[in-house]
């Protein structure tokens, strides 16, 4: 075995063991045929495009491409479900953001004042910039709807643009909490890019599934509007903030995502125990994957303040993080045990 053959065999270690056992020798032969006289050069190395093509093949096989084992197929479903749930949540939140934007620009009357928002003068370049950024959440709605309606390529472009917008926002205010928000968006976007590869068949789901996060987003906006109005009217009370200190930690996007995952996770565990026919590896694993960025995001909200309100906020945030960690670990164990056995 010459040096180049040895290096090609090392590159092929990216492939799953079962696939490698079947294909390694003929792939090495094809690589060396392509290398020609360079195959005898001890300094010759595999080229990067070749390595990338093997890495892409390895990813597709591990996520359910042709020749995948039942375990690989389950991981493929898990990654695609991670993308779907992540995008559904972002689509729901985007409805809230867009409704708030309409309020700020005076299109939608709100029962409370939004204060002076820096949106620039009418018909100015600054207004156009702010409007473009404020309308960016629509990308997540487009991405989710496209995914549900069987257009993953459109979904990928929309999600990548939405993620780029959040990275631009983070570079403008590089704080840890903003970075973890980017992570919450990055995980489903990467899952979307990796999971919906060309060997997966796109499913066209009913329109009502595409509309579900939009309806949930509208309902959430009403709840948020009422909560903000209630806070605005009660902040002159001598007992302020009172019970609100226990609620605030649930209202940011990661707090709402935390609540969603805790309810969904607990619901799945109950269903898993009560109805064996509903058992699945993909659902608990996808939920467990999403608990990771959300837990990090909640932890980034911990504040070193020592007053009573801050202590309450920190206690709730810490409880959220611990609950997410526990449900995430439980779901990961259930999911791992439900996976088909490794191919021998």
């Amino acid at each position: 075995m010459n040096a180049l053959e040895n290096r090609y065999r090392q590159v092929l270690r990216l492939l799953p063991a079962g696939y490698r056992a079947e294909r390694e020798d003929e792939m090495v032969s094809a690589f060396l045929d392509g290398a020609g006289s360079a195959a005898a050069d001890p300094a010759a190395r595999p080229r990067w495009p070749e390595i990338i093509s093997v890495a892409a093949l390895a990813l597709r096989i591990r996520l359910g491409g042709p020749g995948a084992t039942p375990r690989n197929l389950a991981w493929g479903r898990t990654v695609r479900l991670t993308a779907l749930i992540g995008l559904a949540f972002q689509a729901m939140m985007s409805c809230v953001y867009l409704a708030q934007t309409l309020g700020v620009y005076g299109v939608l009357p709100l029962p409370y004042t939004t204060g002076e928002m820096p949106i620039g003068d009418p018909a100015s370049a600054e207004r156009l910039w702010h409007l473009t950024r404020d309308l960016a959440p629509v990308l997540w709605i487009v991405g989710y709807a496209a995914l549900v309606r069987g257009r993953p390529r459109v979904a990928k472009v929309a999600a990548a643009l939405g993620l780029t917008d959040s990275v631009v926002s983070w570079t403008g205010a590089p704080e840890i909490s903003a970075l973890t928000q980017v992570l919450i968006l990055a995980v489903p976007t990467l899952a979307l890019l990796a999971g919906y590869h060309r060997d997966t068949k796109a499913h066209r789901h009913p329109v009502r599934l595409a509309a579900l996060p939009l309806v949930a987003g509208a309902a959430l906006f009403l709840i948020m509007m009422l909560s903000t109005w209630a806070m605005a009217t009660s902040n002159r009370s001598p007992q302020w903030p009172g019970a609100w200190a226990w609620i605030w930690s649930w209202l940011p996007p990661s707090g709402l995502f935390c609540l969603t995952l805790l309810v969904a996770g607990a619901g799945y565990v109950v269903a898993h125990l009560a109805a064996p026919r509903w058992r699945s590896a993909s659902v608990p694993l996808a939920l467990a994957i999403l608990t990771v960025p959300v837990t990090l995001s909640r932890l980034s909200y911990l504040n070193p303040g020592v007053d009573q309100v801050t202590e309450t906020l920190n206690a709730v945030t810490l409880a959220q993080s611990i609950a997410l960690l526990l449900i995430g670990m439980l779901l990961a164990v259930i999911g791992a045990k439900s996976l088909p056995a490794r191919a021998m």
Partner: protein
Amino acid sequence: MTEQAFLVLTALADESRHGYGIVQEVERLSEGRVQLKIGTLYGVLDRLATDELVSLDREEAHQGRLRRYYRLTDEGAHALESEAVRLTENARYATERLRARHAGGTA
């Protein structure tokens, strides 16, 4: 059918070929435009084999290395023919429209 799959099936239409032989033939058929990487080739071959459009023909040892030859199946020949007819029809429509456009422009 993707262009890569179409070209791989076309490369196997006249004779069975091994992995690098397919890469060379696809490059020749596309006049150098499509240069399949080995990882990409095996992804395409896996997909075509799953759809039973290609199958393993034989194995040979060449300079001490394994070469597997792949051949077009009857289903593969039928799929290739259908795709070729579709592409020919599309090309014919485009040519007719362009001819009419040029005739209108010069009238």
